[in-house]
């Protein structure tokens, strides 16, 4: 069966520090991968999505970047975090020919 792993679960980082969040999917190949952010009490904001290795589409201009170095690995990064980067970050995947997402358990990022 397919599983999605996301880590860390919680992270507290100072302003100006770098960020690296990792997401991996098991049990499938060539998944579509997504990074979402959710501010407290808000909806889901699509940040990046990828349909293949090295293929990244950005939905909003921001302080973050994404990379897909391997088929089932998706990384969210920042060189210098801002206070406004605080939020709940969710990775998700879907099969190429399927609809609907399966979400990871999320990372709660607090920038202080």
């Amino acid at each position, binding site marked *: 069966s397919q599983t999605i792993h996301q880590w860390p679960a919680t992270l507290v980082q100072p302003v100006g520090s770098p960020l690296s969040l990792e997401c991996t999917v098991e049990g499938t190949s060539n998944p579509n991968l997504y990074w979402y952010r959710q501010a407290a009490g808000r909806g889901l904001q699509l940040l990046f999505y990828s349909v293949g290795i090295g293929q990244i589409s950005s939905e909003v201009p921001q302080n973050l970047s994404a990379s897909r170095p391997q088929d089932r690995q998706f990384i969210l990064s920042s060189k210098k975090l801002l206070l406004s980067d605080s939020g709940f970050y969710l990775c998700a995947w879907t099969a190429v020919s399927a609809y609907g997402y*399966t*979400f990871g358990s999320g990372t709660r990022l607090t920038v202080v």
Partner: protein
Amino acid sequence: GESVGLHLPTLSVQEGDNSIINCAYSNSASDYFIWYKQESGKGPQFIIDIRSNMDKRQGQRVTVLLNKTVKHLSLQIAATQPGDSAVYFCADSGGYQKVTFGTGTKLQVIP
């Protein structure tokens, strides 16, 4: 479409009553619709889906209704339980690559 900047609307329901959560979508080309449940501190989980060639689909204690004429989707939860307390998101897709999420509704179950 997305409404990521808005506070979530809240629906309060007495335990045992039925809950109805509504959602409007804007993309006429959407052909697949999903409801997700997100408990506090967790990622959203799939509840039920429906394709555009259907107007009703039932699961265990949940029913989704689709009205394509007015672009409206609803989730009905029968005999609401405390464990149903969560944020519920509708989502629509006109293609597999991107899914558009609704604002979300917070369901509070009153014991």
